[in-house]
């Protein structure tokens, strides 16, 4: 399997996730070996994923945890035991 640049791009996302076949993987890597452009694109996509995954991107609002747990505490104080089951039948799935 030989790939040119345009045909490599659609595989990059799956390649990053490791979800390409062995054959596709070999063809992609063979292409990347001598294609600076696609290698750079792969690097940039991958780096953008690392950046996006960083906790500093979409950081939690300040006080989020405190407000959440205060609300949970209120809910717990209502003394409503969680429903046994959404349809009212205990199927025992949580039994130990």
């Amino acid at each position, binding site marked *: 399997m030989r790939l040119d640049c*345009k045909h490599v*791009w*659609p595989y*990059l*996302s*799956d390649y*990053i*996730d*490791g*979800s390409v076949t062995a054959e596709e993987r070999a063809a992609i*890597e063979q292409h*990347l070996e001598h294609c*600076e*452009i696609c*290698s*750079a*694109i792969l*690097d*940039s*996509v*991958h*780096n*953008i*994923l*690392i*950046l*996006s*995954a*960083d*906790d*500093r*991107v*979409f950081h*939690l*609002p300040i006080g*989020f*945890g405190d*407000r*959440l*747990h205060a*609300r*949970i*505490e209120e*809910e*717990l104080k209502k003394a*409503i*035991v*969680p*429903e*046994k*089951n*959404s349809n009212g039948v*205990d199927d025992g*799935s*949580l*039994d*130990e």
Partner: protein
Amino acid sequence: MPMATAEDEQSLIARILAGERELFHELIRPYQRLAYLTAISVLKNVGDAEDAAQEAILKAYRSLAGFRSEAKFSTWLVTIVMNEARSRLRKSSRVILESLDEPSNANEEFTPALVADWREIPSEALERQELSSRIEQAIADLPQGYRVVFMLRDKDALSIQEIADTLGLQPNLVKVRLFRARMMLQKVLTPYLKLHSSKGKGRFSWMGGKV
């Protein structure tokens, strides 16, 4: 990332259901960030996302007995948050709801931004405050159907199959949207990343942990 094992979780859940309700705090703590990220992927607005995440977590508490031990707690929770966020979006939006089905530009050809090479160390790049804002904005600007898939995969670290189950989509469609979302972000964000010349080594070193 959540640290508790599935067994720890199972026993926590069993104890909560048996009456040790206070333990719900402990059960939810590793997932509260996940809940928020899921909500903001749909609602975009910080305040709305916080409200929806809180409400969904309380709903999760109330229906905790409905949780099936075969499922992962994280995906179960994500589904509840997703439903809560989507129902709020439907109620609030005066504009026609941007569909989670095929985005309007689905047939455009996706071509990446061409770069000579890029060598900035990501964690250092984020020291630049404006870069994280740019990334957030770029993600927020994605069509909703792409944004949600991107956030679930690349921020919440759900698997393709889990995303497919959560959104009721075919796994292949999830993959296609993920690819397009990533390429769109690459195109929009690459101009803001610093270019470094390639030394041509260690190119695949980062693959180690992912594959």
